[in-house]
């Protein structure tokens, strides 16, 4: 069991309240996923030549005492580029004006324990072990702003309870995926992708789905085409919710064992595993509430 939440606001004024609207959604999924929680939030993109990297120091000995400012200064000096960091405890968002691969290579050499959560122009990512309320509180989820987000509460079944195995998973830039269910062929997918130079960071089944779909997008598939190939290749039970720079996408496997419900108003589209995570939303009494069908693709653009 796991819990999924997603929220996309349609009115610019509501972007200020994105996190505040979402926190009760995430906490509402505590029974479905009490061991870890995570969130990817998409907001205004950084400059054309800039990239944001969300980083996690909780796997290192220093943990929340990690000196982010020193790291950013050193990175700036060594790579000869402006680097700024917004840090809180074991989490930081590093923004630099060079390509992400150079930064990631430097980080891997200098700080091999630092975990890269996400890369892109508009995605920020947080995930950690703990109850959804603890994780939301740790990172101030209620203060987050943006256009859309993807969240997850985890009850681990396929791999250990560790921060790096929490969801959302990311691959490439501005792409993330959360999963409720279990895949039966993650190693088959992995064996297809690894010879193409695609590197895996965990033994988690969801990571295989995330890297497969991002690989298809990178190969030039539209989101719809990538999801279609996902239906063909990914075997098992799943409700997947994905976030890109400008969209949320939802699919369910043909057996639809894992739940999902959607509430849509003129102001927002909210997605959750169960209605109890949507009940607090404004004007929910008048929302169009429906259950997404299996093997259908649902895509909502900002």
């Amino acid at each position, binding site marked *: 069991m796991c819990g999924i939440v997603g929220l996309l606001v349609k009115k610019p004024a509501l972007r200020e309240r994105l996190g505040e609207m979402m926190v009760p959604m995430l906490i509402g999924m505590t029974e479905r996923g009490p061991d870890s929680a995570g969130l990817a939030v998409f907001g205004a993109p950084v400059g054309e030549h800039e990239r944001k990297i969300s980083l996690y120091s909780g796997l290192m000995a220093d943990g929340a005492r990690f000196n982010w400012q020193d790291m950013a200064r050193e990175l700036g000096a060594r790579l000869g580029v402006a680097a700024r960091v917004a840090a809180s405890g074991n989490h930081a968002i590093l923004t630099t004006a060079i390509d992400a691969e150079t930064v990631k290579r430097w980080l891997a050499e200098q700080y091999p324990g630092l975990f890269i959560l996400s890369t892109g122009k508009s995605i920020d990512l947080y995930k950690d072990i703990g109850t959804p309320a603890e994780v939301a509180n740790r990172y101030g989820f209620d203060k987050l702003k943006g256009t859309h987000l993807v969240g997850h509460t985890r009850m681990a079944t396929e791999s250990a309870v560790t921060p790096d195995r929490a969801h959302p998973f990311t691959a490439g830039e501005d792409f993330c995926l959360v999963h409720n269910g279990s895949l039966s062929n993650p190693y088959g997918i992995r064996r297809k992708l690894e010879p193409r130079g695609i590197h895996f960071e965990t033994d988690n089944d969801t990571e295989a789905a995330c890297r497969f779909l991002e690989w298809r997008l990178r190969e030039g598939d539209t989101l719809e085409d990538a999801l279609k190939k996902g239906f063909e290749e990914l075997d098992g039970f799943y409700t997947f919710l994905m976030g890109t720079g400008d969209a949320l996408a939802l699919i369910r496997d043909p057996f639809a064992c894992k739940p999902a419900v959607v509430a849509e108003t003129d102001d927002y589209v909210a997605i959750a595993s169960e209605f109890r995570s949507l009940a607090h939303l404004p004007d929910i009494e008048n929302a169009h509430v429906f259950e997404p069908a*299996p093997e259908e693709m649902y895509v909502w653009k900002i």
Partner: protein
Amino acid sequence: MENLTFNLSETPVSALNRYLHHEAPKGAARKILVTHPDGAHNIAVGLDCPVEVEIQGHAGYYAGGMNKHGKVVIKGSAGTGVGENMMSGVVHVRGFASNGAGASAHGGLLIIDGDAGLRCGISLKGGDIVVGGSVGSFSAFMAQAGRMVICGDAGDALGDSLYEAVLYVKGNIKSLGADARIEPLTEADIAAIAHLLQQAGLDHDPKDFKRVASKRELYHWNADANQEY
């Protein structure tokens, strides 16, 4: 005797259900109103007396499950397993129902005004289900007894491995499951459909429905069939 309200934003479901199990049989209240259900699980499960419960909003999993004698009306949608294992009485969903609606119901009537998800009426054991909308795939899988009236369409593998339950479908059937077949409607079928539609408050011509029942070829193992049915 008057109405009694349980506001689930203030009172836990367990308090509601404790009242329904221990006080309601004494006839203390005519009708129980449940406000702010907000998708909570197990609302009004295990009723064992002729009490009426009205849920004013969306219910979570197993609402009205194991109902005996009671009437549960959900003025919203229902989550997984609504009316599961019902023995008698009525469960009425005014909105849509998720997966496994009416699973293994032994008796009573489950009415769903909207669509039902996958596996509606799975392993039905004698209950009746009327769906105003469509049902998802694998509905009535291994249904043993009882009747289903589907006013919309049915998904894949309808009535797979059906026993003696009978299904009536007005719309399209995407595919029939193993051992299920379409049979001609009899006068008794038409009367049964009319009666069930009338109880559900739905207006359709009973003659527009198709009857789906078991071929009964799976009842006995056939070595010559080479596992192909």
